[in-house]
């Protein structure tokens, strides 16, 4: 990889956007790439807007702070778009040409014609993934929504290998000391309490990754008649 890939993850507090970025960042460094990860949030409370950013490159990364010009945007909750629970408006602000959007939603969202026109002009690729549904069905907890979103990313981009995600997951939940806020630590405890052992947690979440990587679907934006969507596969 010669160029830098910048990812913006937008979601709601408690959904695990920060943890997803952490897991992805560690996974890419395990593969020998350079990565930086940082979060952005206001009052730390559930359902408030929360964002995190991952920069991935084969060489040193200098730039810091929010990712202003992302190549990939991952939307963890439809409310980010429909209720504007987002630090950037519109939700795809700054998206680079040929950029990728992965949205957690069971159905395509009713995006405005203006938004679709702009996305069409950018040659953006739009993907939908029922991440929360997969998390609930496979891992039996919606706390795995963030892992499903990573599965969607793997399905679309192959930025990082499934093996590296497994290793990173094991490291994140396997007892190594790491830094988490009180609320994140509390959610970690909830997640861990759902599984008898960490290996079980990792295995089940890897199932989520596989399922999500297969379930992610691309929607084609017709340039001339933006507004009507046509499913590709």
């Amino acid at each position, binding site marked *: 990889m010669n160029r830098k890939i910048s990812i913006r993850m937008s979601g709601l507090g408690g959904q695990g956007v920060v943890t997803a970025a952490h897991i992805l960042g560690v996974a890419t460094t395990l593969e020998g790439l350079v*990565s930086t990860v940082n979060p952005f949030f206001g009052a730390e409370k559930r359902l408030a807007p929360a964002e995190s950013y991952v920069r991935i490159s084969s060489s040193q990364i200098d730039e810091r702070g929010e990712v202003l010009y992302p190549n990939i945007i991952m939307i963890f909750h439809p409310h980010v778009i429909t209720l504007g629970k987002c630090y950037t408006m519109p939700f795809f602000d700054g998206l680079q040409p040929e950029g990728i959007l992965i949205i957690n939603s069971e159905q395509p969202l009713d995006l405005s014609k203006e938004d679709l026109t702009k996305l069409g002009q950018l040659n953006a690729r739009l993907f939908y993934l029922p991440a929360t549904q997969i998390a609930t069905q496979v891992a039996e907890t919606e706390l795995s929504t963030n892992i499903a979103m990573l599965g969607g990313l793997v399905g679309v981009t192959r930025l990082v290998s499934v093996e590296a995600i497994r290793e990173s997951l094991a490291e994140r939940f396997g007892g190594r000391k790491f830094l988490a806020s009180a609320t994140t630590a509390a959610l970690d405890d909830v997640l861990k309490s759902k599984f008898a052992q960490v290996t079980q947690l990792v295995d089940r979440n890897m199932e989520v990754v596989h399922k999500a990587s297969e379930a992610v679907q691309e929607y084609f934006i017709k340039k001339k008649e933006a507004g009507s969507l046509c499913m590709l596969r």
Partner: protein
Amino acid sequence: MIEQKIVEPEYLFFQADREEVFITGSEALKEAIKRANVDMAISYPITPQSESMHLVGDLYVEGYVREYFRGENEFAVMSAVAGASMGGVRVFTATGGPGTLRAFEIFPAWAGARVPVVCAFMTRGVNSPLSIQPDTIEMAFMLHTGIVMFHAETAQDLYDMLLKAFVIAEKPDVHIPVGVFADGFFVTHTREKVKIDPAEIKLPPYNPYSSPVPVMDMENVPVRHMRDPFVMKSNFISYAAHASWQQEILAAAERARKHIHKYLGGLVETENEEAEILIIASGTAVSQSREAIALACQEGLNAGLVKIKSIRPFPEEEIRKLTQKAKAVIVPEFNRVGWLCKEIKSVVEDNTKVVGGPRVFGGMTMPPHLILAEIRRCSQ
């Protein structure tokens, strides 16, 4: 307490085999304090500093820090820290943004009392309107408190500067507080690769007899200030004593220069300093500038970089020399007032060539493209 081997500071800084880990700035702070032989740490939480002092609390539980407690507020914490330091122990704390301002009275008191406190400042916007996001405006307030000020660009800087801060602060010819400033979130919450020393080694303990002023001696300054302050006397001797004392604090910061050269490799770092366009910055504004310079290079534009690591003492001579030949000097900053620009303008001979800005504030990330636009404009 956990057994660690005491090593010479030079060994810990420059010779020990370091391991590369993928951690946040707050975790880098923990790793630094783990090896800093800190006797006492006192905390009061404020975003984006809370994780840092939480982790120092973990160090206390793990047995790396002798004493730790939470103060009532920042003013109380900074006061308690002064007491601990006067009592002859190595002490550490951290704060940021509104916390810095809440404790403000105590910072010049630290310097006046010659206490070698090390404090980390995780910079953030100060109210109001409320922002918890990074902004370096508190550094403008801190410039004239008499403390030494370092500004970290990365988690690696934060780790290194903190450890070196203790050694520099405790030199008998310095012996004033050192503040290590790191931009909130952009450093504290950013996970990146940091090279750290083995956990089995630590700095030598603080030697209270290194103090150039007596420790807790009621008959002498600084404690005598409290019992019998100069303000109570209206005579020439008391004015002269006060004035000379203040100048001695400034002189102590000046004497820190040689130690900063030895341990930090200088007050500034430069890249391509011969370029006609120079960007001078500190903290994470340096990171954004690096990115802008790389973008400019792709367009065939040539710009150099001066990273200021020490804000107090300020690298007057270095900046004066470096800017002599430059056609334009760009000063990007993460605050509204442009305090760094003012500092630079005060030392550059022809300061009409200093471009104030770009500036962002209130927590906004500075797009490298804003700096690039200035480089383009100055190249015309």
